[in-house]
């Protein structure tokens, strides 16, 4: 099963994994990436995630189609949240299922690299002191991460 969802509410990784493999006996490997709201400096009240409704789902679908072209996946689930998310909260979930672990690992990492730089989401910081912080800057590291898939 292949699923793409954009939602405000939280997700449960156990339920998503169970749905992904339900009825299948030939999946040997599942890789699940969870991206969390991080607050190293202890100044963050929440991250607010803005998104482009419609395009977010479409772009995630295109990235997933590209992953399926490259690796033999038996299933995948992509969930991205929007709205305000507190430190420690879930932001994104990518699950890949395959007969073998190498494909599941590679596809999950590819999906995350591409979601980061192609899915239309933007993070704004809200601080504990009540001020609205800056928009999070896109990282050069994320663009560099893309380069390795282009060989």
């Amino acid at each position, binding site marked *: 099963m292949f699923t793409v969802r954009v939602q405000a509410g939280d997700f449960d990784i156990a339920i998503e994994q169970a749905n992904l493999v339900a009825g299948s006996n030939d999946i040997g490997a599942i890789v699940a990436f969870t*991206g969390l709201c991080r607050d190293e400096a202890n100044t963050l009240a929440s991250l607010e*995630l*803005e*998104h*482009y409704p*419609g*395009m977010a789902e*479409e*772009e995630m679908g*295109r990235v997933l189609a590209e992953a399926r072209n490259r690796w033999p996946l038996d299933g995948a689930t992509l969930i*991205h949240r929007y709205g305000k998310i507190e430190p420690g909260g879930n*932001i*994104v979930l990518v699950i890949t299922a395959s007969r073998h672990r190498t494909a599941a690992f590679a596809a999950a990492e590819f999906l*995350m690299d591409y*979601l*980061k*730089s*192609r*899915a*239309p*989401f*933007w*993070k*704004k910081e809200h601080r504990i002191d009540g001020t609205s912080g800056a*928009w*999070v*800057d*896109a990282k050069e590291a*994320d663009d560099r991460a893309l380069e390795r898939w282009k060989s």
Partner: protein
Amino acid sequence: MIRLVYFAWVRERIGKPEESVTLPAHVLSVADLIAWLKERGEEYAYAFENAPLIRTAIDKAHVKHDAPLTGAREIAFFPPMTGG
């Protein structure tokens, strides 16, 4: 009429999330559209001050600034994405 939508700090700088505009005949590409918008007021000039940085989508698919606007119904402008 064509629909323009803005996100994140592009939206904040322009001061609205969307608008509909009628494009002059000489606006043929994304780059033309950005140049035309920058003439419309300070808020647009501010939003597009570093134009090469701004990302664009036509009808919900990423395009480059040299993309033609032919047939476009919705054009989106936004900063580099920071999801995931």
